């Protein structure tokens, strides 16, 4: 695999790339352009970039107003301040009228690292999932991040895009096809399915190797669209493997683990164990160390997978 790239880097580059093609694309930020990487777009299209200052709630409303006058706005901040602080603005100004606004939320999850718990948003997927009609995209690598931006531009309606601060390996080739609502099988397996999203796709692949060495065959599924969930794929894996482990850099309450569990409880009940943040806040530390500290690493996923297999009848 090539150099590691953070999905936020790919986000900024994609905005600048597609800005040329889509003249009605505008980008808003709240004093974090250097960190969210929307600064890349600002450099390319200064007349279509608007720094709203440290006022996220207003930014969400301004983006909404621009969408109502023909623009395709991407409003960016850290996940904490976009989905967290501005939840109700997103719910009422964007979600309820189904307005064509894209929320580009970076620095999601605990891999924010040293800044610690106040900036580590582990709740954004849960918040956004609860809004009717919201599409949630959580790309696993730079290739997916770029294609998610393009898909969001072309989709008419609200989209929440989740990007990370930490550099991650590129998992997909340039000819990878991305489609909103479609999961991707990354590896075949028969004993247990590891259903992962975002940075956890890499960790699930590592877990698969650990399990293989112990004679357990695990499939790996990448769910980059958390809503609408690719239920067909999830159910097919449940039927094929009979046990599931969900893997996400997010609280186990309301995120991918919940979405998969809700689907399977109603449509194909099998044991489901969830890897994620266990109803607690994050802490300061190097991002990579935190992945292990919070048991989001491949070895921890492998342990959960063995427990899931043991639950099979």
């Amino acid at each position, binding site marked *: 695999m090539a150099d590691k790239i953070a999905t936020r880097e790919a986000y900024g580059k994609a905005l600048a790339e597609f800005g040329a093609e889509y003249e009605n694309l505008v980008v808003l930020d709240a004093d974090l352009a250097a960190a969210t990487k929307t600064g890349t777009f600002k450099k390319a299209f200064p007349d279509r970039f608007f720094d709203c200052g440290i006022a996220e709630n207003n930014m969400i409303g301004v983006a909404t107003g621009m969408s109502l006058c023909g623009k395709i706005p991407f409003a960016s901040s850290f996940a904490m301040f976009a989905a967290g602080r501005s939840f109700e603005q997103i719910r009422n100004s964007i979600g309820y009228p*189904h307005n064509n606004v894209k929320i580009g939320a970076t620095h999601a999850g605990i891999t924010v690292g040293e800044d610690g718990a106040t900036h580590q948003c582990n709740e954004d997927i849960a918040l956004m999932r609860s809004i009717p009609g919201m599409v949630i995209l959580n790309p696993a690598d730079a290739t997916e991040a770029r294609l998610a931006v393009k898909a969001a531009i072309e989709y008419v309606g609200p989209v929440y895009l989740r990007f990370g601060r930490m550099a991650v390996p590129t998992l997909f080739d340039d000819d990878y096809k991305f489609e909103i609502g479609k999961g991707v099988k990354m590896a075949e397996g028969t004993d247990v399915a590891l259903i992962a999203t975002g940075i956890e796709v890499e960790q699930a692949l590592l877990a698969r190797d650990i399990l293989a060495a112990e004679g357990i065959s695990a499939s790996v599924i990448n769910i980059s669209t958390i809503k609408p969930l690719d239920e067909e794929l999830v159910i097919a894996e449940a039927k094929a493997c009979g046990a599931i482990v969900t893997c996400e850099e997010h609280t186990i309450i309301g995120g991918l683990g919940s979405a998969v569990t809700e689907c399977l409880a109603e449509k194909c009940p099998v044991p489901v164990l969830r890897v994620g943040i266990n109803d607690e806040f994050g802490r300061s530390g190097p991002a990579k160390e935190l992945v292990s500290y919070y048991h989001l690493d491949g070895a921890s996923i492998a342990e959960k997978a063995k427990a899931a297999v043991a639950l099979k009848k």
Partner: protein
Amino acid sequence: MDTKRKTELAEIARKIRVGIIDAVYSANSGHPGGSLSIADVLTYLYFEELNIDPANPQWADRDRLVLSKGHCAPGLYSALAHRGYFPVEDLKTFRKTSSYLQGHPDMKHTPGVDMSSGSLGQGTSVSCGMALASKLDGKAQRIYAILGDGETQEGQVWEAAMFAGNMKLSNLVWLIDFNGLQIDGPIAEVMNPTPYDKKFEAFGWNVVECDAHDFDSIEAAYKAARECTDKPTVIISHSTKGKGVSFMENNVAWHGAAPNAEQYEVAMADLGER
């Protein structure tokens, strides 16, 4: 404004007030006080000021109006109905389960509603975004918002005010319906947001005042807004909450309450329907 036109507008405003009372009475809930206080302003906007086409509510270049104080939906709906967006008779379906006239404005289902609103403060930012997009495209359209005076206690209003001032959104006009009353009592006692003039001047706005129940005064305010080409304008509109219905005037109890059958008759008599 000539006397004839003023008389015509006064008659339209009277009908709009009747529609407000009909809607709230039929629903047995809703917000008559703040709807009545902006009835003359809505009349002026929809029948004099706004460049709109009721036959084509989605016309891209139309002027936009965001009712940021969305609870005054009965006022907006009555104005839209009388302007020809939908049948006046439908006002009586307000807040009913099968109706397209929701308790707060719903842009997806009600012709003429430019933005869903109701959660206070949010419409101010949306109006800024509309004005910015319109300026970017060099359009002549103008963007209007109506705020409650109590609404200005929301922090988002001042985030938006800062934004509009900095961006010099001269195509944007806010009107603050300054009736002095909010649910818990007089705004000056609950949490005084005044003085408005000094605050908005400091935020880079053109500040104008008007008498909310005098068409000459309303017209002068919106003309002054058009003449200001380098700043957004805020109109501080001095109004009487419940204007036109004797027992509702200046009585905070009618912020969000419906009249009973007996009170309905008094209201209709006050409005010249009996």
